[in-house]
């Protein structure tokens, strides 16, 4: 059974997935960030593979991606850094990224290597449904990786069901159509999340985009299985040098 599946079997509420860009703030921060997240209460770690043209991301993650690339982060370097992660990291780890760098690395090879180092799932926002079904889904499944599709308030019901049926691990519910790191009115989001809750989905769902503190985490957790925080954590990391202290303070402020 996948680590994600196990996680949601024991915890259905307030599951917290925290995103960080690989190679940020320093090239070799990746594992330290992951350990700090695990120690301080994150349930899932999402590692972003930096790309020069991240279409779905707002300014904060654009900047962290740029810095990570300047630091020398590549998919190859990342797999090197993750090669021994399972000696210390026991919570689920998912990789998030854009298709182009993965295609250059080789899609099949990427999936194989991800499995080998102990990655549990993939979030690839610009891999469309059609291409997933016809071309890329096979390698993902063969390597027993969970694939997490995004759904939005504009996703039609029929498509929602289809994306749910092809996803495993969890579904990524985008709080409203926007790039990452945009402020939200969570009273409006609630209606959408209640709709998702009653949609009879086979997967649990986590809410992302605009979740930045305890108030927003509490607000969406009331109508979901939990949330994904990205830009707010990157922002916190950008304001100091000590990854461990910052992560502890940040997660404390969100969870307690």
């Amino acid at each position, binding site marked *: 059974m996948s680590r994600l599946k196990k996680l949601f079997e024991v915890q259905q509420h307030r599951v917290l997935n925290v995103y960080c860009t690989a190679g940020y703030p320093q090239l070799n921060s990746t594992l330290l960030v992951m350990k700090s997240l695990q120690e301080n209460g994150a349930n899932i770690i999402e590692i972003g593979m930096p790309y*020069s043209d991240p279409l779905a991301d707002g300014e904060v993650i654009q900047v962290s991606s740029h810095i990570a690339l300047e630091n020398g982060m590549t998919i190859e370097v990342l797999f090197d850094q993750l090669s021994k992660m399972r000696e210390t990291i026991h919570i689920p780890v998912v990789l998030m990224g854009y*298709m*182009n760098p*993965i295609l*250059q690395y080789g899609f099949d090879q990427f999936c194989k290597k991800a499995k080998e180092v102990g990655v549990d799932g993939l979030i690839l926002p610009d891999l469309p449904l*059609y291409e997933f079904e016809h*071309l890329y889904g096979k390698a993902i499944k063969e390597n027993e990786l969970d694939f997490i599709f*995004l759904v939005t308030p*504009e996703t039609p019901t029929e498509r929602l069901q289809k994306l749910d049926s092809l996803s495993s691990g969890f579904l990524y519910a985008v709080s409203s*159509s926007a790039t990452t790191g945009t402020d939200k009115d969570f009273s409006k989001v609630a209606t959408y999340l209640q709709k998702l809750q009653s949609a009879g989905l086979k997967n649990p769902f986590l809410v992302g985009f605009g979740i930045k503190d305890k108030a927003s985490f509490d607000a969406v957790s009331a109508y979901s299985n939990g949330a994904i925080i990205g830009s707010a954590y990157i922002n916190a990391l950008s304001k100091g040098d000590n990854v461990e202290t910052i992560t502890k303070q940040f997660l404390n402020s969100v969870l307690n």
Partner: protein
Amino acid sequence: MSVFNTTTNYQKPSSEGYYGDFGGAYIPEMLYENVETLKVQYLQIMEEPAFKAEVAALLKDYVGRPTPLFLAERLSKEIGATIYLKREDLCHTGAHKINNTIGQIILAQRLGKTKIIAETGAGQHGVATATVCALKGMECVVYMGEKDIERQAPNVARMKMLGAKVVPAKSGSKTLKDATNEAIRAWINEPNETHYIIGSVVGPHPYPDMVARFQSVISEEVRKQLYEKTGSELPTHVVACVGGGSNAAGAFYHFLNEPTVELIAVEAAGHGVHSGMSAATTQLGTPGILHGSKSILMQTKDGQVVEPHSISAGLDYPGIGPLHAFLYESKRGTFMSATDEEALESAFHISKIEGIIPALETAHAFSVLPKMGLKPTDVVVVCLSGRGDKDLDTYMKFIKD
């Protein structure tokens, strides 16, 4: 990759927008509804007689179409072949870009949209978009690279005068690629009321096909005009510059399935193809995904997009439309390139011998004529995609007293 329908009809991508292996719609879910609506409706709307009539009327009375096909006698004599210039520079706003924006603004109205966003490189597409927004009373926001805002100041002023808001793209190379990223992000943030008018044959399906169709009026006219002048609808060669490739797509369109017509696409080589300061995508690029479609793009071995260079802002783009990638791969098209210096020389030369100051982008197309090995019996159509007024700042630096 053979799962995608490989069509030999170059005018018709597959239902999912593939030309061979190139195309598709690699977009985040946040854009799905908008792009899907377009995909389902664009052909239907474009085929409506009322839509066609509205577009045709504006192209005639507002844009000034048909644009002339001009026999360039001095140039022909010099090159040793018959050279015709398709005068897109005479379109309202000074370039072919308005052919597409006229079509898309009416389409946006049919889709019930109230706000228009666009990206622009040289500013020609931005001006063409701002123009049709003024015409139709729509709100208009144009994203433009900070570096391009500097080098294309007259077009920035024109857009503002036309009532558009110009937003500088400050990320990456601060040019067309980044302006496109910003426009796509803006679209993600307000998808319902907004239509994104992409200016080239790039982006997710159906944009490459839709823009090619709106620009195809160029070659539709060329066929008729050439018949009137020579008794044959078909030239031996069509030459056009390529950044993303909209004027080339329009100039090639009605010749794509005519195997006797050679299609010459001219890319910007910047300081030289292998100088590290170039935008010659097919020479330097590899298959990849940028701005929502699979095509050929300039990138590192790790799949990071490389910042291109060209003296002309309109060609300063690291990718190329999927149709052109397919023309390149299938060898239906011949891809050549011209350096900054060659383009400048051509711009000055054409001005002096034909009395036409071409845009820097267009000047690249002229640069390859002497290298094509043309014969006296050849009949060549060069797409004169835009006029050079916007480039006067650059040209003035090189004027010799």
